[in-house]
């Protein structure tokens, strides 16, 4: 899939075509034999999966197939669950982020995450976004912080809607706006990778379309991994798709290949609605 085909008006990105082409060749994140155990029970089995930069990788599969669990390996969110153990290597820019030496808190500032249900903090819209930059010391003064807040909201396509009510609580927004606020919150700490765990599952189709449009916009700058239950959504937003089943990575390939002529029978059965 060629991402350079996208029309790109962002001045910061012009002339980066060569880099982008290269980024597609070398994966941003490279997982080798990742397994996850929950209290001794294995949930993910030896998954090896490259994730390419400036593109969207979709993880699909039936419930309980380990796709969310795998996603949470990429920012070490599994560390927060008691009894969870992750083995294998996950290379990000050549560094194994699954090693104990890597501080998960620092990692999470590089790998943002957006959740299934919009979960804005019960604070003002401004504070929701400003929280990350504040705790990471990304800003020196109020002006800088204002700038980050505005930029993040603009990138999340929310600025026009909320610029006059930044002091209102984030929970006062609609579901779709809340989810975009969460995306803006993730962007604000300047991550390189954004993980999305079923970001549209609680939204109506219009809000979903907005988020999908936003994802398409964001992939010009970020490496995005999205878990979704909706195969149509995976087909719409992603460039690469990985199909998980019972904790195994069954098939991984370009999205159009997966959705027109998957190689594996299980993938075929799943995406054509023949499962079970």
């Amino acid at each position, binding site marked *: 899939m060629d991402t350079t085909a996208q029309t790109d008006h962002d001045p910061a990105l012009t002339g980066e075509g060569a880099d982008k082409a290269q980024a597609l060749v070398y994966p941003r994140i490279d997982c080798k034999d990742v397994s996850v155990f929950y209290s001794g029970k294995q949930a993910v089995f030896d998954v090896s999966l490259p994730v390419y930069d400036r593109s969207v990788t979709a993880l699909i599969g039936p419930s309980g197939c380990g796709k969310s669990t795998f996603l949470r390996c990429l920012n070490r969110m599994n560390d927060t669950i008691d009894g969870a153990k992750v083995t294998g290597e996950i290379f990000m820019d050549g560094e194994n982020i699954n090693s104990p030496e890597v501080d998960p808190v620092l990692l999470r500032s590089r790998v943002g995450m957006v959740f299934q249900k919009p979960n804005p903090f*019960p604070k003002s819209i401004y504070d929701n976004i400003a*929280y990350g930059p504040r705790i990471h010391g990304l800003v020196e003064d109020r002006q800088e912080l204002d700038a980050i807040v505005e930029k993040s909201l603009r990138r999340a396509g929310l600025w026009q809607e909320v610029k006059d009510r930044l002091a209102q609580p984030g929970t006062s927004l609609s579901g779709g706006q809340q989810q975009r606020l969460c995306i803006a919150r*993730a962007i604000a700490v300047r991550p390189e990778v954004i993980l999305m765990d079923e970001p549209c599952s609680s939204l109506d189709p219009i809000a979903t379309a907005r988020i999908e449009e936003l994802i398409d916009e964001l992939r010009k700058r970020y490496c995005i991994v999205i878990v979704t239950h909706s195969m149509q959504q995976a087909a719409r937003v992603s460039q690469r798709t990985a199909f998980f089943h019972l904790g195994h990575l069954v098939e991984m390939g370009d999205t159009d290949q997966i959705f027109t002529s998957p190689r594996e029978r299980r993938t075929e059965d799943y995406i054509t609605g023949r499962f079970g």
Partner: protein
Amino acid sequence: MNNPPETSLQSEKALKRLRRRRAADTRFRMYGLAALGFALFSLVFLISAIAWKASGAVTYHVVKTDIVLTPERIAPDGNASPEEITRNIEGFYTLVRDDLFARFPNAGDSLPVRQDFSALVDRLAVLPLARRVARHPSLIGQSVTVQVPVSDDVDLFLKRSSPRSIPFRIGAGAQISPGQGGGMVLTQPDLDSVRATLTALGEHDGVPSVFVTSQGAVARLSDLGDEAASFELLAGDVADFGGTPLKGLIVTVPESRRTISDLQIAWALALRSEGVIRRVPHTSLLTRTDSTYPELAGSLAAIVGSLLTMLVTGMVAIPMGIFAAIFLEEFAPKNRLTQLIEVNINNLAAVPSIVFGLLGATLLLGTFGLPRSAPLVGGLVLALLILPVVIIAARAALRAVPPSIRSGALAVGASRMQAVFHHVLPLAFPGMLTGAILGMARALGETAPLLLIGMVAFVAEVPSSTTDEATALPVLIYSWASNAERAWEPMTAAVIVILLALLVIMNVIVVMLRRKFERRW
């Protein structure tokens, strides 16, 4: 086929089933309402019973009179040092009593009469006056207005609560003429109601006493004839009966079976009609400390003791409980050990409070040698008692914070600590505080552990620090309730009301905090 099928919504079977289901629904609702109604009724009954009893202690009777503080009486040895003055209660008492006694020149001066008269006011009642004079020695020789509570028997009688007394009217047509022995005779009185009442009461160890009063004069019925009734004068002068309408009072209990004599009743009635004995708000209940005389007793020491105890309890239990809960809920790994701790915390909440008292008595008093009867020890014991409650409530509050908030914070790169303190805690705080205050409310009402660590002591001084001897409100209720005199009953009820008021205040604080800080997500 025109008949509807069996499964139709209109069929006989369906309608029958519907009726049965509706009946079951109604029955269930009725059970619920009945249970609720019973609970509500019990509560209303309890509250109103206590309030009714306590209403007797809202006011009380005092003697209010002007006396001259003659130095001879107050400082007979010429020693006017504060200590001496305070110690000379007898002198003050004599001043007050003599001032009152002087109002009854006809009473005679025999010793039994004097003794009888002395019982109108308890000796210790003048202690505040003595202290006041000791503080301001310049008052000696001056005329001052003193206000001294009458003894509990007189107070109860004047409140018509014990012994029971029934007022009656005497028709205006009655004529008064002096009788033999300084007494008087009423002719043509309309005393049918008195006769009926006396007949109804019957004779148990004596006849009920019947009084008539007018102004400062009081007479007792000695003989009730068909045409005339003869009275003997107990206080005041026959001349006082002239003109003014007479008021009658039947004291239903015969003199031999009550603690207040007819003479005392007469004096009390006379003093009241002269305005010397008057009913005033019973503020001393809140401003005085415990006493063996009900009319002199107050709950200030217990209130302060309770507050000091609560201070210690709160300062120990709330931070400890909240931090323990945060650690258990947010940081502790979920393993056998923490599970064991969890189970034990839950069990601890069910341990009878007296066990905590035993623990306090042996450990804090015995091993650590902390002072007995001190709010410090009481507070620590109560803190231990409510700690499980606080922990459980705080954990519930933490658990009520949706995990998505934690995940959200962690995902933007907050550490676990930051996630908890920046996001979870502010959300859980109202709930935690609610639990803490409810725990405190429980501690406030706890008696048993305090009994065991000696906070049941008679405390006449207001404690000023957490290591002073003190008692607490529920303990005061317990000890007052076990006193014999009738006068303690309304007092006890009044303290119960004070305790309930404190509890209500705490609950109101809880509600207000919730309103103010509760945030939806």
